[in-house]
């Protein structure tokens, strides 16, 4: 979001995210192989690659349109648990931003909040269940407190990324209660949750784009 949270800024942030996901594909596969089925990196990479093609061929006219394009591409290409969850997150964010031409810090925080609500509505996970919710929940809280105290878009996203990274790390000792890792019971402890890791990666990329 070199150009801020404009239509173009959002599209650039998603392109950057696609590059980061592709760089971290193998890491996400490795994390998911340990406590899941080893496809998270491949799924996310497939989805974000498809998203970049769509961004290249269509011209979404508003921030909401960019977010909707992201949502529908992820839903129709990722599959697995992550597809509908990230898809819903982007869909709810799109609804939250309405027809704004640019997201200011409060609207950005609201969009992040809506994304989290979407993930929870679909996946029914709470903090501590060892999922992406463990990264997204503290990220939303941090974004809000920076936005409320007058921080700019860059600092809102930086705070969100920082909190998401800590939230992701916090999943390591947890015993999973949602998703595939929950089948492992106690054996899921001692591993980083792949979805929490991808959430942290996305937010860190968005923060980098906004600087």
């Amino acid at each position, binding site marked *: 979001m070199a150009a801020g949270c404009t239509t173009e800024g959002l599209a650039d942030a998603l392109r950057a995210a696609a590059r980061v996901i592709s760089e971290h594909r193998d890491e996400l596969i490795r994390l998911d192989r340990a406590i899941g*089925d080893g496809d998270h990196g*491949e799924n996310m990479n497939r989805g974000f690659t498809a998203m970049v093609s769509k961004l290249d061929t269509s011209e979404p006219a508003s921030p909401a349109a960019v977010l909707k394009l992201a949502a529908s591409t992820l839903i129709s290409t990722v599959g697995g648990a*992550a597809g509908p969850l990230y898809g819903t997150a982007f869909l709810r964010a799109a609804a939250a931003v309405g027809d704004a031409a640019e997201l200011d810090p409060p609207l950005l925080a609201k969009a992040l909040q809506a994304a989290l609500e979407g993930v929870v509505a679909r*996946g029914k996970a709470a903090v501590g269940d060892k999922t992406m919710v463990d990264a997204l929940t503290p990220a939303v809280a941090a974004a809000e407190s920076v936005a409320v105290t007058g921080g700019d878009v860059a600092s809102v996203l930086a705070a969100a990324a920082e909190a998401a990274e800590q939230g992701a790390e916090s999943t390591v000792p947890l015993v999973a209660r*949602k998703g595939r890792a929950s089948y492992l019971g106690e054996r899921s402890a001692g591993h980083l949750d792949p979805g929490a890791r991808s959430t942290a990666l996305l937010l860190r990329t968005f923060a980098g784009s906004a600087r």
Partner: protein
Amino acid sequence: MKKIINDPATVVADALRGMAAAHPDLLDVQYDPAVVVRADAPVSRKVAVISGGGSGHEPLHGGFVGRGMLDAACPGAVFTSPTPDQVRAAIARTDGGAGALLIVKNYTGDVLNFETAAELAAVDGVEVRSVVIDDDVAVKDSLYTAGRRGVGGTVLLEKIVGAAAERGVDLDGCEALARKVIGQVRSMGLALSACTVPHAGEPSFTLADDEMELGIGIHGEPGRQRVPVGPASELVPALLDPIVEDLPFAEGDRVLLFTNGMGGTPLIELYLAHGIAERLLAERGIVVERRLVGPYITSLEMQGMSLTLLKLDDELIDLWDAPVHTPALRWGL
């Protein structure tokens, strides 16, 4: 990783092309989105029975498309649930005016994607019901898990509901029948080796020469416990006892016993295990009236097996025996 493939990214589409070539009389395969449809779909005034899930479990689900079983199957990427557009396309392609029943294995991804598809199909004007199968007794169904997984019971469910739909049972009837089957089918599996997902390139876990994974699912994941391998006389009861005690199955019950291979275990071992399971059930006074032995719901090349027990009554026996003509299951036709 040694596999007979070209590119990990195109494995599913490449295999679908081979399936289409192998069964031109039975299947109509679409590629974008990927759906395997029975050749004579839509069948007018018949409930469309649709399932799907990640690929890598062949013959499940595409191998069960055809007369008397599934109308369509939606193959996701390997071990990845399909996307809603695949399911939506399957519904659109098979809707004969009597609605569609979605058979969903209980995994977060499958449940969420089929849920979205059902919402979309409702918008398209098709009446859609979903049932979620969760027959794996290795997982406790509690607040602390995503619930039990759908495993071997899925094959039996698809056969029985498919037979009912073929006979003209309506959507309510098919749904009720599906819930009945789900209520009385239980499974458990073990792995002697891991499998390698093509895009991952490495085995999902590594076992020592004297270890196995007990209580596995069908996605190459480790099981509930890593335990020493024993002789078949110990392995079979390690699967069968938890199954019998879970429902529970009791003396005098009539059952279907399904001895399933995980993909890399040869038939000679499956038959050997099946023989032991039959003897153990006989000792408990449980009467095996029907059986299925073979690799029907697999995890790529994983070595291992699962057992499934379905409680039977005359209705279910009659539906099990009804004619079926699919690539992987065929009789009476």
